[in-house]
């Protein structure tokens, strides 16, 4: 059956789904609970050498002299590499190739942690000791650390070739008549929202091993979310033909968008080629903090106009993102920041601009939500403020402005082809949340907040056409099992499990009959990056296409064997079965063997190429109940409810994990996580200073629910789901704080001190009586 036909009968088939929709355990869970799973840091090769980088201590300085002579003499040292040892371009970057593998003598370092030299030694300790012996003479230069100032056309430049420190082009989305829109407005909410730098703090820092191959090529065993792009970038950066580079992504201890760019990869390849021996390079946690990309700090000035009865008339916004020293994913991230500023709302007149500034701060790049959490916080907070100003219920205000199926949102013109379920999600969330909390006597004030978002799931990580196709190879084995090969990476998102389930479903076998080969660039077709909540949708569609092709061949052979027309057959119970007479069947493995004898290919390649970059829309609603300690400003999250429409759920257990995990990252973003810098230097260099939520910080009660409206274009009706809860929780929390104590927090994170200070300021102004809101779902009917 062709995918299109499949979708036509999606509802019918849903009733018969055996494997899809079940909370089967992750395929890699047994290895991970026993310690057998091999992560990057666990790689051990015979005769392996160890590496350590000498990194810049300054955010901006010219390297006057790099003296490696003492390091070279240190016992155990095998090689010391500098920029002079990099044969290729010595630059890389997905959108702008501006990041050096190693900074050369005479050139300038642009951030603390820029690598200057690599030491390879017999032991990790010798490498570390020798790296300390590398003498670097710096001529310190003034760092540019303020993104707004950096965008001044006359500002000093981080990269000489980028005047005004503009990283990529400004992104402007405009339509309607802004002046008229604001003229029609009875009220205008004006606010400046700022969000902070957030660190992924994945539990496994970057690591890997490279091996020089006898043919002059190199194999790099190291995790990445984008194996094929790393292959291409690595080849140019170090001057190898791409066909001599093999990337084998190893299971990663977390990624969250922070492992899209190259990290250890080019350095490892250089060192292995130089020494001819396997080389291991594992970054310390501090190195990972200093050298890996973060979530962009962002400042957004917003004007939102509406009529007295709560109809939005105009939206204007200007975003400045701190890109740090190198472009990384910035040009794509800023598009999402601009896009998410629109929310799921009908806005007739608008102009939203976004710019990324180069600075000498740490690199900003991809991070789950990809620019969306910043602007979702802004627009949802502005909507909640608007509701307050107009004296309209925040639920009702949203209903008045929500987009409808068939409409085309301003950002990335893709018609909304599924029902816009935001009202239903919000209603469900409020029902699940139950009665709103009431403050008791004492210093704690409680409040309820809400927010909604409309995440797109994306084919390319921000509409920049890096790739728009998803290759996949499906093989049926002689014993009736299946192997699915695709570019991807396993970092906990569970792509292999989802693919095993979907493949088992369509082939009439069980998930344990399916193995996935992920990412090894020598073994898989190009399928695109593991980003943008795209994998289940794109790979699922590709798999269905491959399965349809295979099925046709299998049924041809099986039909002869069973003396039945191929159209009368189906795949079930590891057999090809005559639909009308299920006892007439032949084992799938036998059919495969028969195909082999007949010279019929039992492997199928599929290439799913969506015609549109954003693949579709999903919908989320969040309700948060919280308590503010009015004396300390500290927030306790009492209850969260998240309801998502992500189409058909492939694995509810894993989806729930994605939702809870995203929610706690968003809670960290809202309340505590803040990778602060001063003059380009990290003030929170370790997990001691950089606070990520512990198990004691989670909501007392957390409910997740889904509305399963199948998307007719998705595999089994599925849409993307990986990033969604990262967007709506922060504005819901800030709304809850306002409901509790009457102050708006426009700058994240809402740390205890910030909340307390906002309350102090409010108290010094005219106090207004605070009344608790009556929450009901009746406002939904507008």
């Amino acid at each position, binding site marked *: 059956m062709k995918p299109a036909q499949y979708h036509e009968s999606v509802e019918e088939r849903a009733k018969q789904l055996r494997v899809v929709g079940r*909370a089967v355990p992750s395929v890699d869970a047994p290895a991970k609970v026993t310690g057998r799973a091999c992560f990057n840091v666990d790689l051990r090769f015979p005769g392996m050498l160890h590496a350590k980088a000498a990194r810049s201590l300054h955010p901006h300085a010219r390297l006057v002299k790099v003296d490696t002579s003492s390091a070279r003499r240190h016992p155990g040292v095998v090689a010391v590499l500098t920029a002079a040892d990099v044969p290729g371009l010595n630059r890389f970057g997905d959108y702008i190739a501006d990041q050096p593998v190693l900074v050369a003598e005479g050139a300038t370092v642009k951030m603390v942690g820029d690598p200057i030299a690599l030491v390879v030694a017999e032991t990790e300790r010798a490498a570390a000791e020798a790296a300390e012996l590398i003498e670097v003479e710096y001529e310190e230069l003034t760092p540019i650390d303020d993104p707004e100032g950096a965008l001044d056309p006359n500002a000093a430049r981080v990269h000489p070739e980028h005047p005004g420190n503009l990283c990529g082009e400004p992104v402007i989305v405009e339509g309607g008549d802004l002046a008229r829109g604001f003229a029609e407005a009875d009220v205008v909410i004006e606010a400046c929202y700022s969000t902070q730098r957030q660190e992924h703090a994945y539990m496994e820092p970057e690591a890997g091993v490279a091996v020089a191959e006898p043919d002059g090529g190199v194999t790099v065993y190291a995790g990445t979310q984008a194996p094929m792009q790393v292959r291409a970038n690595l080849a140019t950066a170090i001057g190898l033909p791409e066909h001599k580079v093999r990337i084998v992504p190893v299971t990663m201890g977390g990624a969250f968008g922070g492992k899209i760019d190259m990290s250890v990869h080019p350095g490892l390849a250089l060192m292995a080629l130089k020494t001819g021996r396997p080389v291991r390079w594992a970054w310390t946690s501090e190195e990972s903090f200093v050298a890996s990309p973060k979530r962009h700090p962002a400042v957004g000035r917003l004007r939102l106009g509406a009529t007295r009865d709560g109809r939005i008339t105009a939206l204007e916004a200007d975003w400045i993102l701190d890109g740090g020293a190198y472009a990384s994913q910035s040009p794509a991230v800023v598009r999402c920041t601009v896009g998410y500023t629109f929310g799921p709302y009908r806005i007739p007149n608008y102009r939203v601009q976004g710019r990324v500034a180069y600075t000498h701060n740490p690199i900003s790049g991809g991070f789950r939500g990809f620019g969306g959490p910043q602007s979702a916080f802004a627009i949802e907070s502005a909507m909640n403020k608007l509701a307050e100003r107009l004296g309209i219920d925040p639920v009702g205000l949203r209903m008045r402005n929500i987009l409808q199926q068939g409409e085309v949102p301003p950002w990335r013109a893709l018609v909304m082809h599924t029902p816009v379920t935001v009202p239903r999600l919000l209603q469900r969330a409020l029902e699940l949340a139950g009665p709103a909390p009431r403050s008791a006597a004492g210093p704690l004030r409680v409040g309820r907040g809400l927010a909604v978002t409309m995440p797109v799931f994306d084919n390319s990580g921000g509409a920049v056409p890096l790739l728009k196709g998803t290759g996949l190879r499906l093989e049926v084995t002689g014993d009736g099992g299946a192997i699915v090969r695709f570019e991807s990476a396993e970092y906990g998102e569970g792509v292999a499990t989802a693919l095993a389930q979907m493949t088992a479903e369509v082939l009439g076998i069980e998930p344990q009959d399916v193995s996935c080969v992920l990412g090894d660039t020598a073994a898989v077709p190009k399928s695109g990056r593991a980003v943008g909540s795209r994998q289940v949708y794109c790979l699922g569609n590709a798999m269905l296409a491959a399965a349809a092709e295979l099925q046709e061949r299998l049924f041809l052979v099986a039909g002869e064997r069973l003396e039945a027309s191929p159209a009368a057959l189906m795949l079930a119970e590891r057999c090809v079965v005559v639909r009308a007479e299920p006892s007439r069947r032949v084992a799938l493995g036998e059919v495969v063997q028969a195909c082999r004898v007949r010279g019929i290919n039992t492997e199928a390649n599929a290439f799913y190429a969506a015609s549109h970059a954003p693949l579709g829309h999903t919908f989320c609603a969040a309700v948060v109940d919280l308590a503010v300690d009015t004396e300390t400003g500290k927030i306790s999250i009492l209850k969260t409810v998240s309801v998502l429409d992500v189409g058909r759920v492939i694995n509810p257990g894993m989806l729930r994990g994605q939702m809870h995990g995203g929610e706690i990252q968003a809670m960290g973003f809202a309340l505590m996580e803040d990778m602060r810098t001063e003059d380009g230097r990290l003030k929170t260099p370790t997990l001691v200073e950089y606070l990520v939520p512990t198990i004691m910080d989670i909501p007392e009660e957390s409910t997740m*629910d889904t509305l399963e409206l199948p998307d007719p274009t998705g595999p089994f009706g599925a849409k993307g789901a990986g990033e969604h809860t990262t967007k709506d929780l922060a504005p819901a929390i800030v709304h809850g704080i306002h409901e509790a104590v009457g102050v708006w927090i426009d700058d994240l994170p809402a740390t205890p001190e910030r909340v307390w200070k906002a309350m102090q300021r409010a108290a010094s102004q005219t106090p207004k009586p605070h009344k608790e809101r009556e929450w009901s779902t009746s406002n939904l009917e507008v």
Partner: protein
Amino acid sequence: MSALLPLRLTVNGRTREALVDAGRSLVDVLRDDLGLTGTKVNCRLGECGTCTVLLDGRNVHACLTLAVHANGRNVTTIEGLAGEERLHPIQQAFVEHHALQCGYCTPGMILSAKALLDETPRPTRREIQHGLTGNLCRCTGYEQIIEAVAAAAHGVRSPKEGGS
């Protein structure tokens, strides 16, 4: 350079020996000298908990434990938990309850859970949280971890598949 110290300890029931520097941490001896890479390593500051092992039954950070302090003692790592045929009930519960994603915190998390359940066989939600404070997880949001530990404690099998 001072002489290396002979170390003799019991790891997962087996006597193991190594020669170590006095300043060497237990996590490095386990991972590099004894090849037991199931114990993870990250911050080396006692914050993340990925290196958690049991030392004489108590969960400790192997990164902040000098190897010499394990001399003559019993160390349990994640490799020592499962039987020949079957997973330990906590491991089984983690698998069934989707209590892991990337899996990097999982060995430490499971060992802290074991230390907790050995001391408090029927913990409340709050007690589970207290027992696992020293183990960061960046993927799961902890909720399914708490469910798995509770299920392991109460001998509960996974919820009926299919529901969310």
